[in-house]
């Protein structure tokens, strides 16, 4: 392998049932930064069936080129045909970097592709950059339960591949005037032993509570006053598509079962958004949630330690703020 032959930043545009996932647009935003530092351009790989209309959207969000395979075999996501398509594109175009969203699809597809093209893959990155001197691609990710950060490089293999945590990178503003090339890639899929059949698509997953998987957590502490106040938090969590969690004091008081508990003796969570309501922020609680990407704290006590880790701190009465916030968010979603 001559690594000098590999040029360009590629991203995988995840679409589910004809809709682009938000992370696909975030990846393009990041890819543009990387491509600028490497003096190259951004190509986006779009796989699916009857998804041609999405190519223009990808251009509007910053793709210089969109490479499309449109085939009935790609209608629902399946590991093997997506791997075949993407690998064929990598073989043909030889990109330097390929980025995926760290989603249930990206984290399935990327390792299979990395295995097939024999290259390095870094999971669940929260920061990507180019070393200004060596022009080396650096991928930074949390490790060891989020207690340590590690910067990973892929010096001898190409493309360097990474999955990127959704919600971390920032997408560009949509610009429908932007111009980009749209290329249809011809590929004949070969059914092999690694294919499987999809018998059924189940659109709604049954509601199971796993606070470690939730993207949004609305969390309550002793400041709630009593168990009934969790209806307030549940309302806000529902409006945000999240779950309710709590501090140890709440479990000890018997207001919620232990599976909801965040902290040293509970669960360690890393949601995109953590809203702490009436939680003072004991060190044992902070240990379980300070990795959250964005923390909003609402507490009556201006000196509560929770404010030391909060991105947004609101000194006030949660019993009045939470209902209004819920109402406004629901109104926002109606728009």
């Amino acid at each position, binding site marked *: 392998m001559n690594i000098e032959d590999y040029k360009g930043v590629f991203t995988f545009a995840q679409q*589910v049932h004809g809709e682009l996932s*938000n992370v696909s647009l975030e990846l393009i935003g990041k890819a543009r930064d990387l491509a600028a530092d490497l003096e190259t351009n951004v190509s986006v790989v779009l796989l699916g069936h009857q998804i041609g209309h999405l190519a223009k959207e990808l251009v509007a969000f910053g793709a210089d080129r969109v490479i499309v395979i449109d085939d009935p075999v790609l209608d*629902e*996501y399946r590991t*093997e045909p997506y*791997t075949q398509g993407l690998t064929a594109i990598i073989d043909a175009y030889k990109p330097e970097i390929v980025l995926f969203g760290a*989603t249930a*699809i990206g*984290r*399935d597809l990327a*390792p299979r592709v*990395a295995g*097939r093209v*024999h290259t390095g*893959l*870094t*999971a*669940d990155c929260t920061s990507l950059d180019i070393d200004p001197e060596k022009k080396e691609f650096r991928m930074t990710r*949390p*490790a*060891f*339960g989020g*207690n*340590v*950060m*590690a*910067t990973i490089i892929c010096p001898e*293999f190409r493309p360097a591949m990474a999955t990127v945590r959704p*919600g971390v990178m*920032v*997408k560009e503003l949509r610009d429908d005037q932007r111009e980009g090339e749209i290329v249809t890639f011809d590929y004949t899929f070969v059914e092999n*032993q*690694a*294919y*499987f*059949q*999809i018998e*059924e*698509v*189940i659109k*709604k997953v049954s509601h*199971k509570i796993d606070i470690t998987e939730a993207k*949004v957590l609305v969390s309550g502490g002793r400041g709630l006053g009593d168990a009934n106040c969790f209806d307030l938090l549940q309302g806000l969590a529902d409006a945000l598509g999240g779950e309710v969690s709590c501090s140890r004091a709440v479990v000890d008081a018997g207001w919620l079962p232990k599976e909801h508990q965040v902290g040293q003796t509970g669960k*360690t969570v890393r949601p995109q*958004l953590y809203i702490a309501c009436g939680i003072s922020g004991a060190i044992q609680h902070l240990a379980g949630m*300070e990795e959250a990407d*964005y923390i909003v704290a609402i507490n009556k006590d201006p000196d509560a330690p929770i*404010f030391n*880790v*909060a*991105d*947004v*701190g609101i*000194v*006030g009465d949660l019993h*009045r*703020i939470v209902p209004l*916030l819920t109402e406004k968010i629901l109104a*926002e*979603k109606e728009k």
Partner: protein
Amino acid sequence: MKIIVCIKQVPDTTEVRLDPKTGTLIREGVPSIMNPDDKSGLEAALRLKDEHGAHVSVISMGPPQAKEMLREALAMGADEAYLVTDRAFAASDTWATSSILAAAISKLDYDLIITGRQAIDGDTAQVGPEMAEHLGIPNVSYAEEIQLEEGSILVKRQFEDFSHMVRAKFPALITALGELNTPRYMTPGAIFDAWRNKEITEWNRADVPVEDSNIGYRGSPTRVAKSFPKTMKSPGMKIEEGVEESVEFILDKLKEKYLL
């Protein structure tokens, strides 16, 4: 039916504490456990064994102390255990680890391979799919339900807001979610048996048919350039205003961060 379950011994990262002065990890006193998703994978295999009859092997790559965990797996009901261990395998990334494990597994007969979705120390979720790629078999990730049918397996495969019901023909690999089941406890008789009477097969470098270029540090495409403690975040903005203003402030911030 022959099932192989891949299990990893991991530090219980939920027990990890940071030294408040230096911000570094305190590793002392942190217990080693069977990775939770792997344990659910093992439980799934044992349930298939209970219901349909199966031979369940467990395999792990790691240092000699991983034998403790393999004995735990035997005490839960696994029929045999393999430890793939050699200094030459140390510092392997996911490519190298999956190459080594796939090569070791290729020496065994199997219909189904089960791995956990991801290990709590690395959180990559890559070794299972990469192994399936090396072995040329399908992988069905994120299994939340498993049913056995003649010559194939029916798996409910979880995505963020939908699921697939997938049918894969044997041989196949699936990666198990923790919520698949609640793993059983070891029984006293089985514990006695596992620690006193059962053997763990140890495979070293020479026993695993894998090329030198695919193992250890030199066989790993990715390298750790540096690692550093997560810096404690600095506090953000704090406001003390009326209810309306507070709510507007939160809404603005959430929009700014694309959280709404």
